[in-house]
């Protein structure tokens, strides 16, 4: 009798001790905000499953150039939208161009993308900083985890923090005007699962610790209200998120240590491009009440506007219809399907 009771206890122990019920896997690769299924998008995904790299688009002759130009237009529109959202918040939007593909490792995407992003930003009226140029002084192997992975190494992360320090200092006096009441604010502001402390390895045998705060950002502390310090929100993709580094090693944490009178918020999510940032800020991140918004953009973000990439990775799971030229390019790169 006692034995059976003990077994019942064992089962109850299991079920209650795991009350979170949620399996904290690698949510970072697909942080879906809305689970609604768009049939058209599903159809595109099955019909056009391949995603070309930006250099492949640029090397695909006239069709590739035409598609790239379309992507540039979409990039410009999204950046303008991001500025509009930032302005509504009273936050200062700053564009920084950052990628470890520098020096010998620079691709056609970088060579074409950097001046384009600079000119688009200036046209819209945004301050823009090329953080890639100073990185040319370093070998790619020194600043990334190459050959295992192309994201920042511990050393690279420190160098990036050095590059961002003067930018943050320059805007240290700017404050936004917009605030939200308790009832207006949502509980989660970022796209990562909140309150995580997990070990991940992204399938590359490079384990790292991911800590997220209760608002779903990759940072060790929670944001409280009313805010008492300047808030700097960084938006970006995996170069900002910094996979394969612990929270204590990523450049936003290093910046936080250098700016104790500010709150540095890392809202990076793998695979995001500018229109994802627009929807992230409009729907969630605005509740962080940022004073400065720093967009960490990569020249590849332009190519990310190709319709198959958008249908696959877009934060808002809606259908992105291809133009005739995009379809032609798809057929050129991947055959009839």
């Amino acid at each position, binding site marked *: 009798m*006692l*034995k*059976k009771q*003990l*077994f019942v206890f*064992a*089962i109850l*122990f*299991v079920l209650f*001790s*795991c009350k979170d*019920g949620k*399996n904290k*896997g*690698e949510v970072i*690769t697909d942080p879906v905000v809305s689970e609604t299924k768009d049939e058209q998008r599903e159809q595109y995904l099955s019909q056009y499953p391949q995603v070309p790299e930006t250099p492949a688009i640029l090397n695909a002759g006239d069709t590739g150039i035409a598609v790239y130009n379309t992507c540039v237009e979409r990039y410009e529109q999204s950046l303008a939208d991001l500025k509009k959202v930032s302005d509504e918040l009273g936050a200062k939007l700053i564009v920084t161009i950052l990628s470890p593909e520098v020096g010998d490792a620079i691709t056609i995407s970088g060579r074409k993308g950097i001046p384009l992003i600079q000119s688009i930003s200036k046209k819209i009226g945004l301050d823009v900083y090329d953080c890639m140029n100073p990185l040319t002084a370093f070998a790619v192997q020194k600043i990334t985890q190459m050959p295992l992975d192309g994201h920042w190494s511990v050393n690279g992360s420190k160098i990036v923090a050095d590059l961002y320090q003067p930018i943050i200092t320059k805007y240290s006096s700017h404050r936004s005007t917009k605030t939200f009441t308790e009832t207006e604010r949502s509980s989660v502001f970022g796209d990562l699962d909140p309150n995580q*402390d*997990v*070990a*991940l*390895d992204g*399938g590359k*045998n*490079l*384990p*790292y*610790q991911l800590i997220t705060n209760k608002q779903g950002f990759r940072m060790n502390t929670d944001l409280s209200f009313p805010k008492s310090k300047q808030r700097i929100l960084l938006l970006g993709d995996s170069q900002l998120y910094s996979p394969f580094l*612990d929270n204590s090693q990523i450049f936003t944490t290093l910046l936080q240590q250098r700016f104790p009178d500010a709150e540095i918020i890392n809202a990076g999510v793998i695979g995001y491009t500018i229109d994802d940032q627009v929807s992230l800020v409009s729907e969630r991140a605005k509740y962080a009440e940022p004073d400065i918004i720093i967009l960490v953009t990569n020249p590849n973000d332009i190519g990310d506007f190709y319709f198959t990439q958008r249908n696959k990775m877009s934060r808002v799971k809606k259908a992105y219809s291809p133009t005739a030229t995009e379809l032609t390019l798809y057929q050129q790169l991947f055959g009839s399907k």
Partner: protein
Amino acid sequence: MQFNTWEFFWFCSTVLLLYWCCYKSVRLQNILILIASFYFYSQLHYSFVFYLAGLILVAFVSGLWIGKINSFKKPVLILSIVLLSSCLVILKYTNFGIDIVNGMGARFDNLKFLVPVGLSFYTFSTIGYVTDVYRKKIEPEKDLVCLGAYISFFPQLLAGPIPAATKHLRQFKQQRVFDPSNIEPAVQKIIWGLFKKMVVADNISISVDYCFARADSLNSFSLYLGIVLFSFQIYADFSAYSDIARGVAKFFSIDLFQNFKSPFLSRNPAEFWRRWHTSLTRWLTDYLYKPLGGCSLGKIGLIPVILFIFLFSGLWHGSSINFVLWGLLNGLYYVIYLLRNQIKHDDLAPDKDRWLPSLSTLGKILLTFHLITFSRILFKAENLGKAKEYWNSLISNHSFSWPPTFLYAHIHWCLLLLLMEWMQRFRQHPLDISNNKWIRYTMYGAFALIVILYHKKLSLQEYYYFRF
């Protein structure tokens, strides 16, 4: 095609359906097993099937040859063993040899080999077969298909249990009929195996990797948790594979070795090795320990034999200095217990009449667990330098900081595994909790539910022992 995939489920279901459709013909069933096993193996890499086929052929011809001749049997046996082990030796140990020679000043480049998964396991299985024929424990098998099915049987192909020809070969020669009473033990083993693999092992594997990757910066307590978790990971992972293999084989009405007998309840290292990877221990005992003299040698004479067997076992696991040292360290544990007369051949589960272990039993269990666990730093670390780094930080980095949450977030699964094994130490299986079938079914359902709810998602971790 791993056990815990839908792909394997559909493959296995199809093979089973066909298998029981031709229940009237043993030969047809064996042909089906052979084809299915070769298909299963080819899914990893097409080239692997050539090694498997080659070894089966060599074992088949050697067996017949040894069975036929009356003189020069021993040279033929030695020739067969050399041939059978040649693939394993060349593919797995050439680069180790090159590293040793380079260590003495030479300059040779390492060679690139694709080592077939499971090669160590089926090489031992074929060597066991020809040796048993030589010893006249079994008749040489005259049916190539039967021997092929026995060696290549897909549930045990990649990571054992290593079958014993004296015990298991005959099953492939007998009429096998579908027995409904096999279903429950099969399901029981599979559910328990899935729990150990998908809930225990997979959930802690990256935490363990993290500890080894950050050994230079984590404190002693975190590193202690890391190596304890690794002990659970490797046990849960490897024993899960064996359990699922046994469960799947049971559906074919074939019994495989019980490879693990609650090893964490062992009270000394000798008992541990009788409970851990028993099919390898049996192989080492039958084909190394006994020929080298075994018990007849006396305590002192036994010492070099024990050390040699553990060294051999270490090298079987991997071709690096880490595994050599790991084997020798475990051999040393064994020898110390042997010299202190603390090795008892008493494998009855501990503390028969008690709910909780006595202090003495608990002390022995904990000491054995920690001895084995600390030796595993050598087993897990990439190289000797990393093992030293881990060990040094473990004993010297006493700075206080609370360990990362993920290091203890899944520890309750390890405790549940241990609790079930302790509670069920007198029964056949940890899930065999009652004579009342409805209570048992509820238990199976509960654990199936745990697997569904709490398995690690989005990452299919390879079974740890595939690398050996």
